[in-house]
Structures are given as C-alpha cells and as structure tokens.
C-alpha cells in the first residue's frame, strides 16, 4: 500500500493553536446557507456605479456578450433560460452566495481583495438584477442573499458514478 505506514498515530505536537483573530482574517468563505457572510449591505444602483469604475474595462459596458468583441474576461450577464448562451450567473450559477464569495476574494482581477464588503454586496445586487434574478431595488445583505433561489439551482445534480463498466 502507498498509504502512511505508521502503525500508531501519536500526537506529534508540531504546529500551534491558531488565534481567533488569525482565523477571522483568512476565513472569508461564504456558504449557501449564509454562513460566512459579513455585516453590511448594498444595492444594484450603487453596484452599477462601482461596476462602471472597476469592472467595465474587462467585462464590458453591460457585462453582456457583444458579438465580434473579444473581452479579456467572461460575460457576466445573459438571461435565465437554461438553454441560452453564454452561460452566466443568470442561467448557470446554482447559488447567489457563490457570487459574493468569488468576487470578494478575486475581483477585480488586477486588484484582488480591494473591494469593501459593502461594495461586494452592491456588485452582487447589480449583477443579480442585470441577470433578472432580483428586482433592481432589492437590498443585498447577510439575510437576503442566502434566500435567493437561483434559476439554475434545479439543474444541478451530483455525479453518482462509481466506476465500473457503465458509461454515464
């Protein structure tokens, strides 16, 4: 076997207990049940302004695919029909919390980690609204965001293949 070949597992005593402050600093993930969402809030109008300032350069004026234009970043806005293209937040993202989580850790691409929590709530509101998932005036915060039911949610199934001869 290629596994660990030690017969007994002692506690080795290497490493140290992490402080709560250390954990809080890095523990930025957000789950669909809302766990991890910070205080603060935002709306689509504010989000639109931030988008114009910080996102347009890569994702285009509206976030939509423009025929013949090759942007350095993927389209963010289309419609909510499962058959439509491109695949974006509106028709391919099963959870809205993922949007908050991803943007906060990664966007804008060239300045990751530079957005405030309120900015991320606003951008989330803006993109959900542009994708026709929430009404333009809906405020996004730790309570409202996890409650959104994304159109694509029902399409996602967990892989149930287990090896063996079946091609699935």
């Amino acid at each position, binding site marked *: 076997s290629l596994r660990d070949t030690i017969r007994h597992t002692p506690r080795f005593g290497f490493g140290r207990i*992490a402080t709560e402050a*250390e954990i809080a600093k890095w523990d930025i*993930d957000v*789950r669909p049940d809302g766990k991890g969402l910070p205080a603060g809030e935002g709306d689509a109008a504010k989000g639109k302004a931030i988008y114009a300032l910080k996102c347009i350069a890569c994702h285009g004026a509206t976030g939509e695919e423009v025929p013949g234009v090759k942007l350095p970043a993927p389209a963010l806005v289309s419609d909510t029909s499962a058959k439509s293209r491109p695949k974006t937040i509106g028709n*391919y993202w099963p959870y809205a919390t993922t949007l908050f*989580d*991803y943007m906060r850790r990664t966007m804008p691409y060239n300045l990751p980690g530079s957005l405030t929590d309120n900015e991320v709530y606003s951008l989330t509101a803006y993109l959900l609204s542009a994708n026709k998932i929430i009404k333009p005036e809906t405020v996004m915060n730790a309570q409202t965001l996890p409650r959104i039911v994304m159109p694509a949610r029902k399409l996602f199934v967990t892989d149930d293949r287990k*090896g063996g001869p079946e091609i699935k």
Partner: protein
Amino acid sequence: AAAMIPVSSSFANYVPVGGPALPPPVDPTKRIGPGPSKIGKRSTFENPARKPSDISSRSPLQDFYSTITPADLHFERHHAGIPDIDPNTYELLIHGMVERPMKFTLAELKRFPAVTRTCFIECAGNFRTGSEQMTPQDILGLTSQSEWTGVMLSTIFSEVGADPKATWFLAEGGDASLMTRSIPAHKGWEDAMIVYGQNGEAIRPAQGYPARLLLPGYEGNMNVKWLRRLELSDQPYWTREETSKYTYPVHNKIRMFSFEMDARSIITYPSFPQKIEKGWIEIRGVAWTGRGKITKVEVSTDAGKSWNDARLQEPVLDKAHTYFRYLWQWNGDETEILSRAIDETGYIQPSIKQLIEARGTDLGGYHMNPVTAWQIKQDGTVLFKPEGRK
C-alpha cells in the same frame, strides 16, 4: 626541467608546453569537454517545451520516454499567475470542525511522518479537438506526473482532532485568486496529502510551492496549489470553481462534483507530425485512471475492428500514468490506430459516440475522455482524427 604546473580548475583550458597550435577539432573524442558543475543543463540539441496560453501550459507528452514529467515541463493551470511565496513566513491554517484550530509552518509540516507517492494530475478541462494537425500536447497536454512527497492529510486531521462528523472540507490557495474547492472528508482520511516535494526536490512554484494539496485521481483543479487554509465542514461550499466551472451538461442537467478522472489513454508514438516507415513499429503511449490501477490497454491497428493487449510498463502504480507499448508490423496500407484504457473497476475508455449516447450532444469540455485515433496515410504521415460531435 620539471615545470611545476599549478592544479588548474579544469584541464580543458590547458595549453601544452611546446605543443603545436592546432585548430580545435570537431571530433568530440579529440576535444576535452567542460567539467562538472553545480547544476546540469540539457543538450543544446534538445528543446522540449510546454505550450503556454494566458492561463495554462501543456506538457509535451509526445517527447516523453516514460512517465515522470520533468518538473520544468509539468503542465500549468493558474487562475491568477504564480505567487512568490516566502517559505519562511508560509503558514497553513486548519480550522472549522476540529478540536484544535492550528497553524503549521512549512518546517513543521516537514517534521510529520512523510510519504512519497507517484501519481498523475490532470486538469478536468483536458480536451481539445477540431484539426487533423494536432499533437498529443495539443489534444490533452494538461496532464503530468510527479513523484510527490509530503504528509498524509489524515496525519494532520488527527493532529488537530478533526471531527469525524465533518463530511467535507474546503481547501484554499494562497495565490491572488484565493481559489477554493470543497472536498469530501473521506478523501482526506484516505489518500489525500499535503505535498512539499516533487521529483525529489522542493515542489516548483508553478506546481504550488511551498505546499499543495494532492488528491490522487481527483480532477486537477481540486489539488489546490499554494495551500494556505483547510476548513472542515458538514456541507460543501458550492464555490465558483465547482459550480460555474468544472461542471458539465448531461442531457438536461448539469453534473457537479465529478471528482475522479475517468480512465484514458493516448498513443504518443506515432502521432502527428511524426512520419513512419514500413516494418516494425513500436506503438507507444500513456494510460491512466483516477479510480485505481490500469489493468489493460488495448490497441487497434485496424481502425477499431480488432483490439490487442499492449504491454504495460511495470511497476503499474495506483492512479498513475502507465506507459504502454505494442509492437506492430505496418505493411504500408492506410489505416487508423487507437488505444483504449481499462481500469481495475472494469471501466473501458469510451468512444466519443458512447459519451454522446450517455450525456447528449452538448458535451461541454470537462471530464471528456474519448478514445483518440490517429490516421496513418500511405506515405507514412500521421494525422489526428478529430472526434465527430454527433
């Protein structure tokens, strides 16, 4: 008189006393070469290279004679480039459903009992087609293999008192994408590792220096590089990389959480743009599966009408690139050559037709492992045979 010659650092530059001044001979048996050095170099006649794009680079599979990928030719897939991490300040945080949330320095990770294992990593998006002028590197160069060394994740789980009720854990990278993936906890208890060694030396920056997660057999993206955080949880996180990406259409649904890479193979010799001659040809290639060991590779030299067993290079390892070879006497007729991998679960690498039957025509680009065919022309030209999508 006895000339006292100081010990020179290399005899190569030594000019003999009284010897005639000769032009440097080109015959290497008549010319002293450069001496030993701190770091060796490739022959100037050999220039293997990855094919880079903005976000990935492909390994030159057709140039490899065996299954260890030289570290500087390992495929790449970065989401925000390669971070420059100082190993002296690096720390790994593990928290969530644990008795003791802890931080480990790199030096501390190295003190735990270490394990070495050889396995492949393959990007789940490792599939390209469309032109007859494609090399193995173009088609599926997003897979490589290394000898990895590190600590079993189970050892770390035990050290922090991981809650047996935790069903998932989140792994987060320390690059500018802070990339995250949810991983079933059982994989952590089974054969997952935190690795800091690659092919004997420190892991390379492009592969996650100073430490990455290794999930043998699981899709490349989950083997989080530049690992900085693990959080144990009772549910997945549905991160962007496991929803918007690394999922794929299966009829009218979207399949997510496909972890194991399905069995696959490719003939790397002969392949485009090589040319063959009549007579004996050793067909060579590589096969792998994320579900255990390759038990058989079959080769067809008559466009799939009949199949024969290739020889497998021993030792055949678990979840590892396995080199195969098959001797064939080519009579000069036009034909197609194909290979298919079979793994220990009984899975047989499918044709594109079987994949379409199983999943529909809108296949997407993830977890695609159809049989690859090469066309042999009468003049010995070898061309890729792009898969028909219908």
